[in-house]
């Protein structure tokens, strides 16, 4: 999965349409509500992420100017957190947990059953293995291959 937003793509019309402007507005309001202090950097990024579900370049710039931290620093921080996405989530994308317990409980069979699903690291629901997550990060436990094949189409 690419971790850094592609410079050229962020100016391309398609990419700009990939995020919902209302959601962006919500994210900006969330950021505005936070004190303009360095310790609010991660909460500000999370406020944006909660609203937009990923961090377009514009969202990161907005956070940088609100917290008054150089954009390069904000990017360096953003890329260090695995849960902060720099690409829009793919609609209908399923994820199969590939933690050890899920591997033992049949994660490879789930990935075979739903070839479009991708593997993700441990989701901390190991006692309900195998576990899958939908595009909204909702978790499902004790998932059978047929069930996932049906859902992931």
């Amino acid at each position: 999965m690419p971790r850094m937003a592609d410079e050229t793509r962020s100016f391309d019309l398609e990419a700009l349409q990939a995020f919902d402007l209302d959601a962006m507005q919500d994210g900006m309001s969330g950021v505005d509500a936070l004190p303009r202090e360095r310790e609010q950097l991660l909460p500000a990024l999370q406020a944006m992420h909660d609203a937009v579900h990923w961090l377009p370049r514009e969202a990161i710039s907005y956070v940088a100017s609100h917290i008054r931290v150089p954009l390069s620093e904000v990017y360096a921080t953003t890329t260090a957190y695995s849960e902060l996405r720099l690409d829009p989530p793919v609609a209908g994308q399923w994820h199969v947990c590939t933690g050890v317990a899920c591997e033992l409980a049949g994660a490879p069979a789930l990935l075979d059953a739903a070839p479009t699903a991708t593997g993700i690291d441990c989701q901390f629901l190991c006692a309900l293995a195998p576990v899958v997550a939908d595009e909204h990060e909702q978790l499902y436990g004790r998932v059978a291959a047929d069930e996932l094949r049906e859902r992931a189409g």
Partner: protein
Amino acid sequence: MTTTAVAPLARLRERYPAAKLPRILVHLGTAGAALGAERYVEELRAALDDRADAVYEAASDGANWAAPSATVFQGTYARRFDRLDLNGIDEVVACFNGDCGDEANYAGTGGRGLTARLGRNNGTLGDVLAQGAYSALDRALDLTPAQLLDAIEQGGFTGRGGAHFPVASKWRFAAAHGDEPRMLVVNAEEGEPGVFKDRHLLEGDPHRLIEGILLAHHAVGFERAYVYINGQARQGRASFEHALEQAREAGILDGGAWNRSFDLEIHVRSGAGGYVCGEESVILNSIEGERPVPRYKPPFATDRGLFDRPTVINNAETLCAVTTVFESPPPPTKLVSLSGDVPRPGLYEVPVDGATTWAGLLAMAGANPGDTQAILLGGPSGVFVMPDQFEDALEMRVLGAGGTVVLGANADLARVTRELAAYNMRESCGECTPCREGTVRMVQLLESPREHRDEIATLIEVMTEGSLCQLGGMAGRPVQSALEQFPSAFDDVSS
């Protein structure tokens, strides 16, 4: 009339009564939600008709194997009904109406200790007060900070996050800094694959953590506390914030309920992923808004930590554990997150009493030691516990954060080892060379480990000695453990 020590607590209990019996608690939480357990709340409410208000949403009691489940609480006993997806709700309704069958006993994993209230309360303050919440704080407030520190020391409490450092010593280091403002950081990041204990504590009994924070505050005196919760543990955060609101409203947070002024700000922060974010100095950087990478030590956090202030960093489980300080003798227990090839995976609170063995733990989970190849203890920083060690007693020092995955007869141990090495490679933050480069090299060498035994041994030594934090420092452990204990598992590819 002089006020007695119990009076403030009695007043609280009077103001916040527990819910009436009989009642039904449906176990939701992250685990219940992942199995669609909400529908049983609706079904039970419909079935109970005019008594629908006796059905409550509750958190998991740790018995994940039983989910989706509901527990009926009658006058003197409680009974849990397991796997509602397979068994339906008829028996639950019958039990609520008085017919609970012959085995009317509670089947949860808890009972006493940290898990005593998990899945047994409906999320109201009254319910947990009735089950003993804030009674340790109430008692501690009669002690001086020095006396409380002594009690913690005598209780033998050590860090439950993995480092096993004596709690009283850490608190004293910070307390020694005179009038300088001090910080408390609660590590509920819980990013180690295979561990899910803090999520259960936050979802099922958040008031216990608040009580632990206030106990630490009474002993040490903090200006601020930051509770740093794993970013994916959204239900845990919501439940903790709800409890904070309840405690604030009841005058518990500011001490008003005891006619005192605690003067402590509590801030809640979420992490945003990354195994390294559970490392304590990374949390400090993360809270300060810096890049989440480890810091060099010294200085130690108790001297200069968060915002350069003397800082105590405690695991969430540690602070929950200290609330048992006045139970005599304090039960030496550890939360073990148990998953893998066992019939009953879930959260277990196991006695670390010198008598409980690995075989005993397997038996609790319904597993046959004879069908078990190994137990992975500690995930990507861990070791493999082999059958010849199953009769060894559990030790706090060895248990780490308590993440255990049981590897049954069909598990591919070499594959598991390689996956752990690959995980460490992905999660290395890149700040120091031994870990950044070493974890990549390790993955390459594990393609044919038996040809590269010397090189792997050297690499592990370099990473252990030279890495900035324990992600790199312990990344070699599972590999070393695997090569020592089951080298032949790697034969298929090394030949």
